[in-house]
Structures are given as C-alpha cells and as structure tokens.
C-alpha cells in the first residue's frame, strides 16, 4: 500500500515536463543545437535542385542504377552472411555449455571495435599470390592461395567485422528469453528442434532483425572497405564524382544513399525491435542449457576461427609488416612520424570536447523533459549518426564552397572548425546516449531536494546533477574520442590543407602509394584504440545493468 502510493507520490507530476505546454529554455536550446547539427545536410537538396532536369536523367542513368544495385547487393549478402555467422555463435555462447563461453563472447564481439578497413588491408595483404600467407604456407606445400578482393572480398571482410552486431543483439534476446517457455514447450511434447523453431526463434527474431539492420546500415555507409577492395558502391561513387568536380552528381548520389538508409531505418521501425525486446538482458538465462557433451570442444572452434580471422589476422599481418617482412616498410619516402599520432589525438580531443558541449543540453533535456520538443531534439541529433561519413563530408564541403559568400568560404572550407563540426555531427549521439542514460538514473527528487535547500536551477545542476552524471559524461567523451581517432572518410576528405597527416590519413596515403608496410605502426595503434573503445562500451553496459 505504501509502496503503491510511493510511486504515485512526488513523481507523478514532474515539473517542467512540458505538460503545461511551456517548453523550458533548455529544451529550446537543445532543439536549436539539433537543428544546427542537421541543417547542413539540407544543402544536398540545393545542389541537386541546381541540376534541374539533369537530376532525373542521372537518376535513371544505367551507371547510377548499377551503383544502386551493387550497393543493395553488397548489403544483402553481408546481412545474410552476418546472420548465418552471428546467430549460431550467439546460440553457442548463450544456450550451450560451451567452455569459456564468456571469453569467447568477448572474443567474438571484438571485431566490432576494429574498423573494417584495417581488416580489408590485412586480408588484401595476406591472401593472393605473393601474399603474406603464401610465405608462411609455402614450406608445407601450399603455394596457391586465392586472392580475396572485389565484391566477394568486400563481402567477406564486412561480414567478419559486422556480424557481432547480430551476435550481440541475438544473444541479448536469448538471455532475456523466459526459459520456462521452453520448458513449457517441452512438456507439451515438442522436441528440442521443434521448440526452438516454434518458441525460441519467433521470440529472438526481433533481436536478430535489429542486429541485421545495424549490419546493413554499416555496410551501406562503409567507405574504406569497398575502396580498398575496389567495389564501386555508393560511397565510392560519391567520392569519385566529388573528386572529379562533379559536386551536384555526388550530391544526387548522396541523397539516393540517404534514401536507402532511411528506407532501412523505416523497416526497423516497422519490425518494432525496440530497446526492450532486442537489447535488454534481464531474464534469467539459467536452465534450458543444451549440453553438447564432447562436441563442445568442436563447437568452440566456430567462435575461435572467426576471432582468429578477424582479430588475429590483422594483428599478425601488421606485426609482420613491422618486422620488415613485407614490402615497403623500409623503402622510399613517406616515413611514419609519431606526430601523426598526436594529430589524431588532437583532433579527437577537440571532437570530444565539442561533442560534450553539444550533448549535455540535448541529453539532459531528453532525459528530464518528456515533451515532444525534447524528444525531437534527441531524434534529430541521431540523423547525423545515421548519415554515412562520406555524405556528411560532401554536404559540408559543398555547402561551404557554394553556399557561402566567397569571403566566408575561406574561413570555413576545409578548416579545423568545420572538420570538428563534422565529427560532432557524426558522433555526438554516442555522447548523448551515454549522458542521457546516466541522467535518467539520477532521481529527480535529488534535484528537487537541492532546490528546496536553497539552490537555483543552475546551482542544483552544478552541485548535484553534474557530479552524479560525471561517469556518463566521461564515457560519452571517451566514445567520441575513440571513434574520431578511427574515422576515415571525414578525416580524409575534410582535413585542413595546412594540417599534417593523422594516423588514418597516413594509412590511406601509404596504401595509395602501395607502401603497405609503412602502415604497420598506425594500424596497430588503431587496433589498440579499438580495443579500448570496446572496453569503454563494456564498462558502460556493466554499469547500466
């Protein structure tokens, strides 16, 4: 009784919840910021509009359609393959007595943190005639190793580095699945397979779909892998047109790519795989464990093999480069300098700092206010996250070239502030998510208590809210920092003329020059950074549950 009235108590009518229809200053600020973040994308429409009737001709041009079909084809292949790899591993780690299940879960999820373009580099370098693997395997008589490149190469690499999305979401739904349902099915005389098909599968389907969608979005937006593998998908076509001074055509392709992205997102909303079902893991995973017997030592090879290919291969390849076994490490110009590392850190710090300034008002407004406006700000900010980096870069560059008076262009086009702005647009949702999550955990009554003890709104925020959400702020900043370090297309396309290489642009440059081996140090550094971002995500999830 007292419990019930407790929940009805002070929490029933949140102040400033916008129920009175009066948006707070914070909410208005949040919406304004979100609009500024998203507005530059609108420039793409202006560019395409300038094309006039050419826009339609270009849209139905066979080359454009080929790009569209190839992109969709790659997305389809990678998505299906990721489901085929991710779901069995999820079942193995969540539902069977696999030895070291926890370790293998982390290992199998690790590829997610490594940018796929590093994997592409490693695979290109390892396979094929004259590849590193031939050197290793020649002594045991294997001399012919097929080259992995092109469409198939891109599909394999993308699958290796994105299937963990499916693994993680599926695993989460498996763990939250009420196992007594399975027991019920068994008592109703359904066999193991039948109860899997009729009970488990329908319940984890939203989780699988959610993971598959993330895979599709990543594949659609990825820039580095198709570039290294030489597959002309949207991101490559956009980049190539832009570099050939066909800005409006690049803008048109960008809008098409955004259209496909929006269609995928719409699909997700229809599937209704909301946070509740797909990602949470509250149910008891106990019981209903399938005993594999001696087979479990065979089964363990599945996640082990995938982890070996996706994680160990690049590490080994880059280490071999470092030891000088591969071409180019010691020859020619383009020597690596640690200053590039500092450049990366410098940019990432700027991006993280700026993201916090942007994220705080939006996250706090979204967590505190329940008004439609606050939600709008939150949603809007995610547009940048869903926008492929190459599209964002093109929009900002074209807008600063064509949309500003000449005198202004110089102050904006390919400058440090514009680059940092692009990072913020792209990555700020990570900070918003982390801060919002920790803000929601702060009991609003603590703020009210501070108010009744004589603190102003701002004073209460400083004295109570800020110290309590500090961990969320730190996590958000770390995520933006780490992803900025790894970002390829934005950094490559928007780097200021006067700004020297970063780790990523240096890798890009030496690959263009064919001096793979030079990339050893920065690539290994990026793998370490990837491991760190995985650790941050895991720590965050640990503290949220």
């Amino acid at each position, binding site marked *: 009784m007292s*419990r019930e009235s407790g929940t009805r*108590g002070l929490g029933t009518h949140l102040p400033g919840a916008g129920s009175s229809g009066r948006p707070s200053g914070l909410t208005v600020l949040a919406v304004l910021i979100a609009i500024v973040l998203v507005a530059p994308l609108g420039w793409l429409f202006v560019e395409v509009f300038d094309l006039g009737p050419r826009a339609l001709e270009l849209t139905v041009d066979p080359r454009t359609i080929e790009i569209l079909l190839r992109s969709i084809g790659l997305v389809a292949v990678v998505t299906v393959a990721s489901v085929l790899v991710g779901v069995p591993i999820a079942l193995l780690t969540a539902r069977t007595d696999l030895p070291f299940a926890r370790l293998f879960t982390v290992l199998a999820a690790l590829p997610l943190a490594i940018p796929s373009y590093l994997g592409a580099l490693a695979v290109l370098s390892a396979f094929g005639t004259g590849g590193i693997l031939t050197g290793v395997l020649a002594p045991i008589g294997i001399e012919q190793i097929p080259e992995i490149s092109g469409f198939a190469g891109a599909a394999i690499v993308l699958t290796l580095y994105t299937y963990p999305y499916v693994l993680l979401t599926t695993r989460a739904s498996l763990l939250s699945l009420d196992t007594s349902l399975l027991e019920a099915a068994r008592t109703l005389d359904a066999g193991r397979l039948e109860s899997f098909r009729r009970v488990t599968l329908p319940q984890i389907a939203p989780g699988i779909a959610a993971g598959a969608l993330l895979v599709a979005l990543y594949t659609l937006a990825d820039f580095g892998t198709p570039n290294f593998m030489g597959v002309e998908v949207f991101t490559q076509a956009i980049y190539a047109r832009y570099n050939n001074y066909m800005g409006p055509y690049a803008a048109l392709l960008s809008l098409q790519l955004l259209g496909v992205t929006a269609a995928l997102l719409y699909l997700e909303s229809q599937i209704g795989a909301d946070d509740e079902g797909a990602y949470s893991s509250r149910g008891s995973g106990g019981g209903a464990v399938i005993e594999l017997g001696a087979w479990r030592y065979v089964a363990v090879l599945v996640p082990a093999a995938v982890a070996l290919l996706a994680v160990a291969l690049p590490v080994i390849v880059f280490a071999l480069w470092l030891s000088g076994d591969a071409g180019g490490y010691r020859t020619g110009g383009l020597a690596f300098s640690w200053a590039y590392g500092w450049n990366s850190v410098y940019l990432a710090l700027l991006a993280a700092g700026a993201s916090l300034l942007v994220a705080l008002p939006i996250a706090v407004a979204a967590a505190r206010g329940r008004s439609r406006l606050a939600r709008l700000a939150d949603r809007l900010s995610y547009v940048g996250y869903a926008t492929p980096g190459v599209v964002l870069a093109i929009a900002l560059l074209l807008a600063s070239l064509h949309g500003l008076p000449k005198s202004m262009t110089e102050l904006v086009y390919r400058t440090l502030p514009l680059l940092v702005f692009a990072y913020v647009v792209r990555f700020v949702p990570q900070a918003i998510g982390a801060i919002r999550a920790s803000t929601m955990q702060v009991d609003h009554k603590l703020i009210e208590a501070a108010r009744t003890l004589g603190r102003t709104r701002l004073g209460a925020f400083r004295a109570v809210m800020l110290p309590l959400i500090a961990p969320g702020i730190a996590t958000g900043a770390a995520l933006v920092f780490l992803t900025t370090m790894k970002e390829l297309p934005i950094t490559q396309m928007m780097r200021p003329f006067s700004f020297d290489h970063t780790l990523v642009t240096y890798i890009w440059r030496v690959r263009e020059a064919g001096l793979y081996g030079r990339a050893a140090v920065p690539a290994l550094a990026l793998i370490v950074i990837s491991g760190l971002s995985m650790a941050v995500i895991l720590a965050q999830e640990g503290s949220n549950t």
Partner: protein
Amino acid sequence: MTISQLPTETTDNRTDEQALAEPTHSDAILELDGVTRRFGPETAVDDLSLTVQDGELLTLLGPSGCGKTTTLRLLAGLDEPDDGTIQVDGDVVAGGDTFRPPEERDVGLVFQEFALFPHLTVGENVAFGIKDRSDDAIDERVGDLLELVGLGDYREASPEDLSGGQRQRVALARSLAPEPAVLLLDEPFSNLDVGLREEMRREVRQIIKETGVTAVSVTHDQEEALSISDRVAVIDDGHVEQIGRPEVVFQQPESRFVAEFLGQAGFVSGTFAEGCVETPLGCLDADRIEGLDTEYEGAAVDVLVRPDDIRAVPADPAGTNGRIVDRQYTGPSFVYTVELDSGALVHCEHNHAEELGMDKRVRVRLATDHPLAWFPAE
C-alpha cells in the same frame, strides 16, 4: 470498556479546539487561500484553503490521488498553482503574478524516499542548504543537528551505508539545517519497516517539537496522522473535508468520507422519535448522539459505530440481533464483522481471549459512553 488508543475527547475542551480550527491571523505561518491545481482535465487540488499556526504540526491525510502530495509540492514551490494564493510568514509566495521558486521560499521538504545526495557524506548532506555562514559556524550547526537526530558519529558516513531510519533522520536534519519557517514531510514513514515506523513517528514528532518548527506532513496512513499531528486535515478530491484535532476528527467526523477513511466504520440506521433512535442495537438515547436534538424529530438517521464502540455477546436465540460473518485476528484483538438482521455490517473489537465462532448468532450492543456521530440516512 472501550479499547481506544486515543486520548478521549471530553466536552470541556471543545472550545479550545474550535479556537484552533478557526485560527486568528496573527499566528498564521502558512496560509492557503483557494489554491487550485489542474493537470489537463483532472483537478488535483480544488479550491483548497487552510491555515497553519506557528509551531503547529498539521497532517494532510487522504487516500492516494486525493491531491495531498500536489498540495505539498505547491507549498514547496516545486509546482505552480493555477489559482489561489499561498502565503508563508505573511509573504505571498504564489498567487497572482507572484511565483517564488523553491530556493526563494523559507520552506524545507523531507522527501518520501529521503533523496539524500549519494555523492556527499552525511555531514555534507546536512550542510548542503546552510548559507551565509562561516565554515566554523556551518561545522557547528551540522554537528548540533546530527546530535539532535542521534547521528553524531555518522558525519563522515555515506548515505548508502545507513539504515532506513538513519536516512530518515539525516533527511530531517538536512531539511532543518537552513532553519525553514515551514517544514514539509511527504509520506515520511512509508519507506520504513513497519516495526520502525512507530518508533520514528515518536522521534520525528519529538525533534520537530524540540526545534519549534512549523510542520506540514502528508500521509495516507490514518494511524500515523492521528498519532503525530496537532491537527489533521482530511483531504478528499482536492479539498479539505474536515480539519481539526485528531481525536475530534476521529470521533466527530463531519462526513461519511471522513468517518469511513478514519478507522473501520459501521452504520446502524434508525428513525429519531421521542428522544431516541430506534436501531437494531436498541433505542439509542438522543443525548448519547452528538448534536441530535428535537429539530430532527422524525428524521431517518445513520449512527456511526466504530469497532471499539460495540460488543458482540453470545445470547439466547431470541435475544440475538446478528450473525458473525467474518473475523480478523490482529494479535492483541479480534475484530468481528457482524451482519445485523437489518442487513447492516458492523465491526466489533474484542480482546484476543474472547473467541467467537464463525456464523455464530450474537447480540450486538453498545459498549461506550462517549457521544456517537450521526448522518442523515442515505
């Protein structure tokens, strides 16, 4: 013999009570006048007016959703009334064009879940609201307050390491620290174990009285309201049903709602004729019924009988007037529900040793000498 935990109301201090119920403005610390708060179509607080005297402990008592917590939030400045005025110590803090935010009101609030800041120590929590004092003075004040609530040794502890009762005490000390003109308490005991509640009620009342602060508490627990308050305001549907001293509100409810909300209530119906009300319990003398005089001659009335007012006793079949349909054993006593032959249900409280079987026919009779309340028959 009545089993009443309450001091018995006697007629001679009623004038006293009336003086309290209609307070003079000079001593009023808190005044609400026509306060109204709507949430969409729902009116949570409806034209509510009341006055709290200096040093008084008033409890707003009512069921969930009656508007009492909203009233508290309006007093604290955490919510703004749509209509009416609120005055603290003679200053309008809400009403007309005035709205003072919580930090500009001389009002403290003890939260239901205590809302102690988890990132601060007990001492820092208590010091949080103290302003404009030297560090030494703050130190001293925190020490005094922790002593007052019996937690002198816990200054450096984290709130998370404290028991429920200790947290409550810290919350109380924290709210008292800035010396507010009015202290508000939101369901202050609902988060405590039942066993602890009674002890804390006594202690909290004692601390409040010791500091002399004016306090308004809110609860849905009638026992709590009756035991800690100087006055109780029973709230229903956003307005005050009745306000007065606990024993008066309990024994002389002015409405059926108040009668039924405060303790178990049974009603026996009858017609008032020739100086007594003819009820299933016999003819009840008019002078035993509060305020029933000859002007109501011939009226059909319902007389309120509480469990401690009546007894069920075994009797000859001819002498019985009801049948036991339910019984509740509470440890120290039995409460029997008796269905009278008239169909009315009444509750009788008995010593735990007096055991009567289910379905047993009994005779219910009046067993009190205090005046009973009545309502016009429905």
